[in-house]
């Protein structure tokens, strides 16, 4: 895997990716709820080699008082990667990246949670990345959304997050670590599966209009599959 940006062959002559997936395929995903018994709601998402745990506490009194909003609750989201989650040890604590992801996750979830039902209170969402293999922000948002529903927090919809990107000039869905590191673009999206609305979008790198459209379609298609798994987890295998 040596070599510079863009010169690594990651799609073979048959159009298959390094892990044997077709460009539109998503990594396998497993979701489980109730993994943290003391939390009000929790979920574990195993997505490829990613493993994410999300726990929700509240609604509770918001402290310090200066963060209280008189007309609605505040979502206090904390995204954190465990020091052992990657091969290079991560220095514990907040950093620029985790602050950014916590912020975008909170904004994506705020658009579905009925915060106005709990004025002046706080809902705490903790997302811990146990094992990271590209796409942890998407796995984190998906896990947090399931944990919120599991905690009985009223929401208009679940949020499914998934990313597509460009590798060797080919648009592929749900990038793995190598594709993320050596690929040319990355387009993570947060999608409301029942309405198809978008609550979160970021883009790294460049995509043409055509490529953007393809990545969008891949994300939408993957979101509906992931939503099935989320619903199955929440309904106890009765989806």
């Amino acid at each position, binding site marked *: 895997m040596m070599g510079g940006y863009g010169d690594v062959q990651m799609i073979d002559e048959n159009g298959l990716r390094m892990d044997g997936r077709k460009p539109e395929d998503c990594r396998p995903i497993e979701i489980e709820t109730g993994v943290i018994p003391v939390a*009000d*709601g929790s979920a574990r998402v195993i997505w490829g080699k990613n493993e994410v745990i999300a726990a929700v506490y*509240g*609604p*509770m*009194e918001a402290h310090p008082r200066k963060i209280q909003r*008189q007309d609605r*609750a505040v979502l206090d989201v904390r995204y954190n990667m465990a020091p052992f989650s990657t091969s290079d040890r991560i220095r514990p604590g907040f950093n620029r990246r985790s602050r950014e992801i916590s912020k975008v996750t909170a904004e994506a979830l705020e658009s*579905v949670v*009925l915060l106005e039902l*709990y*004025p*002046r*209170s706080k809902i705490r969402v903790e997302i811990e990345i146990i094992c990271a293999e590209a796409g942890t922000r998407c796995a984190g948002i998906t896990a947090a959304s399931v944990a919120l*529903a*599991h*905690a*009985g*927090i*009223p*929401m*208009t*919809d*679940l949020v499914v997050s998934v990313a597509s990107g460009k590798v060797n000039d080919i648009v592929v869905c749900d990038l793995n670590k190598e594709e993320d590191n050596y690929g040319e673009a990355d387009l993570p999206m947060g999608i*409301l*599966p*029942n*309405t198809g609305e978008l609550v979160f979008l970021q883009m790294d790198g460049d995509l043409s209009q055509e490529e953007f459209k393809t990545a969008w379609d891949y994300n939408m298609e993957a979101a509906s599959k992931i939503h099935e798994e*989320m*619903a199955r987890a*929440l*309904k*106890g295998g*009765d989806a």
Partner: protein
Amino acid sequence: MLVAPGDDLGSSSDLDPGHGVIVVDGRLKAVKQGRMTNDGKQIGIQPRRTAYVPRPSDLVIGYVEGMTNNIWFIDIGAPFNAILPLSLGPAKGSFGGLRSVLDVGDAILCRIQEVEENHSSVATMKGMGLRKLKSGSVESVDPHLLGRVIGSKGSNLATLKEETDTRITVTDNGRIWIDGEVEGIIAARDKLLELMEAAKVSEYRGDE
């Protein structure tokens, strides 16, 4: 039928939205995870978990979280703390000397006196049996499972008290105070955990 947030529950022309259901563009939509109920007029959701929302005259167990010179802040397991003014406290305390009456972390049995429009509530300890809890153990149950845990007309609770020779006080915020001999408390706690698990299972299955 079990539902997840965002699930479409049909047209709003025939049925009214109940708990955990909203109407969007003429369609009923679930906003909570749980079991759907339909009585022919209204469609609702019995959620898997609910937060306790205080109502006047509720008997609750709270923990002292903090205080000012003349007010205690009480965690009653609701999204908002209750306040306990010095004048409604358990004993005569002096302005600024609240800590000598109730300190942070103390558990109290109190009653909700009033709930204001902005959801904040006022608790009182003036009343029969309302006091600071100095012995025993406090367990928590989801408030919506209380009915199933205590059983029809309190049958489970009566059996539990008799079997373990303990005094048990069930409060509206889902906290249960068990007092008596240590062996009895331990036995009652174990039995209560079993009842809670059974209540969760029957609630989720939708047993009557």
